[in-house]
């Protein structure tokens, strides 16, 4: 019998293996898992990448693999560049919105007694149990010219006439902020909850006002949560498809909609594949960069 030491951080540590018989059978055990993984994740990805180098015969609508970069060169079209720019901007707004609005909520939650904390977490997760599409449609009414916000602002004399949010990029940003909020609050909460009260008291004892304590103690210690929350919100928000389709009314499109368009309406699979591949590549580069910085900051702590 060979014994392997279980490690929690399997990524960076080399498992201690002993030279012994049974190694082959142990590897056999991994076959089903690896098989599924190859079939469901790797194969489609490879197909997608292969497709992105092919072309569609305009007359026969047949796919032809001729290893062309034609699809990638079409990305330079200002139409797509501006969509990419819009996607990034909207995702960034949603991420910043979630961070700015979610941080105080997460901080408040982190300072409560455990029992109350559970109730608060539940109340944040509760909306998730309602259908995502229904919630998104509800925002049309909420943000609409006859919705509660418009009524309130009108009666307060702050606006005259319409709110003008219907089917605008702002509506998409608001909708995404609301939808992704729990994904920001939860990692922030986990990070903030680990900051003991005694550190806040020590900072105060040493002369730091509450604002200074926030800046010099709470925020630096919340950094891993801020990173995690921003990734959890930012990445899906960049590729968001449903929210712009509903709240943008088909007028304001994000990158995800352009990709969907290629597969569903235009039928230009190779170009859609090229869009998707380049989007993934860009995100991967970005993530590796962020991860490096995150690891560096964790090592410092």
């Amino acid at each position, binding site marked *: 019998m060979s014994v392997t030491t279980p490690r929690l951080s399997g990524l960076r540590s080399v498992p201690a293996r002993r030279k012994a018989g049974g190694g082959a059978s142990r590897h056999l055990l991994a076959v089903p898992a690896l098989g599924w993984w190859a079939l469901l994740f790797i194969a489609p990805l490879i197909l997608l990448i292969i497709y992105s180098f092919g072309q569609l015969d305009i007359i026969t609508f047949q796919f032809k693999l001729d290893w062309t970069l034609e699809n990638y060169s079409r990305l330079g079209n200002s139409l797509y560049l501006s969509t990419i720019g819009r996607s990034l901007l909207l995702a960034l707004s949603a991420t910043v919105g979630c961070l700015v609005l979610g941080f105080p909520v997460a901080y408040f939650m982190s300072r409560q007694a455990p029992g109350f904390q559970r109730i608060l977490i539940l109340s944040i997760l509760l909306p998730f149990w309602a259908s995502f599409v229904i919630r998104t449609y509800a925002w049309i009414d909420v943000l609409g010219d006859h919705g509660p916000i418009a009524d309130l602002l009108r009666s307060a004399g702050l606006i005259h006439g319409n709110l003008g949010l219907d089917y605008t990029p702002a509506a998409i940003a608001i909708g995404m902020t609301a939808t992704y909020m729990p994904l920001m609050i939860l990692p922030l909460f986990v990070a903030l909850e680990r900051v003991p009260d005694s550190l806040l008291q*020590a900072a105060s004892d040493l*002369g730091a006002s509450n604002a200074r304590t926030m800046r010099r103690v709470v925020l630096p210690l919340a950094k891993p949560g801020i990173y995690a929350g921003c990734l959890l919100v930012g990445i899906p928000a960049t590729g968001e498809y449903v929210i712009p389709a509903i709240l943008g009314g088909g007028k304001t499109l994000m990158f995800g909609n352009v990709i969907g368009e290629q597969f569903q309406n235009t039928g230009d699979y190779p170009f859609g594949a090229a869009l998707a591949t380049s989007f993934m590549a860009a995100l991967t580069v970005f993530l590796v960069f962020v991860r490096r910085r995150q690891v560096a900051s964790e090592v410092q702590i």
Partner: protein
Amino acid sequence: MTDNVHAIRLSKLHRRFGDFVAVQPLDLEMEDGEFFSLIGPSGCGKTTTLRMIAGLDRPTSGTVEVFGQDVTEAPAYRRPVNTVFQNYALFPHLSIFENVAFGLKEHRVSRREIGPKVANMLELVHLTGREADKPAQLSGGQQQRVALARALVLEPKVLLLDEPLGALDLKLRKSMQRLLREIQREVGITFIYVTHDQEEAFSMSTRVGVMNGGILEQVGPPKEVYRRPASRFVADFVGASNHVAVTILETGRPGTYVVRSTEGEVTCLAAGPPGLASGAAAEMIVRPEGIVRGELEDSACSLSGRVAETSYSGPHTELTIEGTPLGALRTAERGDESTDVRTGETVTVSWSVGASWLVPEDAPAASPVEPDGSHVAA
């Protein structure tokens, strides 16, 4: 500085959490340069009192003055006192240097001055060379010293220490006690030290305050608190003792009384606070180390009984003597003097007046309050 300005002056300081009285209104003054310890069992209110001085907790009523200045309403960051926390509370994301410099930056000390100040302080706590390390790289004792340096570098008028050595092992604790005393002498400021360890408090402090159930039962130099406890609780808390229920028969020389034990009808001489009335019930406290075998020339009480148990602890041999007219008594003798005693042997024991102390029955009986707020019959 005028003589009547106290480093710390607490007036009618009171703290309740809902129904639970954490600190009964207490008055306490501490002098400049004093090493004052607050001791008591957990939940007695000593830490709450300290936190109210630090500004980390708000009193329900009463005032806190630091060198004559009323700071009751001031937040912690505006008080000229600093705290060393029980769990150190070092900032994990900052280096040792940055931890010690934290307060200096908040007090707008120029960058040029911060360097030397931090270096001096790290030298004082023997941590020179560890500036760049993170707290997690240090041992518990080293972290504690960083916490001390971080508080002292601000040159507070009063340093508050909340069970700072509680998490350290015995040997480390002893050397930290020495270091704390040295540092206190060197900087000359008032230290207020909270601990549940009476030995630690006695060996370090100029004065101690004993708290129980939110009440400050006695304040005085360690020797006085040990030899003349104000209540049975204090007598028990600050060391092992024998106690015997007695009735006061008459007053002898000032401070001495003739007493008769309620059980066994033994008449003894006993020391006690002035003003005890004849006929009053009292508790006679006799420290085990005050009891000697054999008959003293000036013995205040002399009894015989059977040695039921001996236990040798190195410096001391403790004997349990049963069957005396006062019931079982515990004695403690210097280790090598009692190697000849065997269990079962009948011995005579006695003590001098100075080894006894009377605590009146109605002495500040702490009304014990449980954490849930219910009062327990004493």
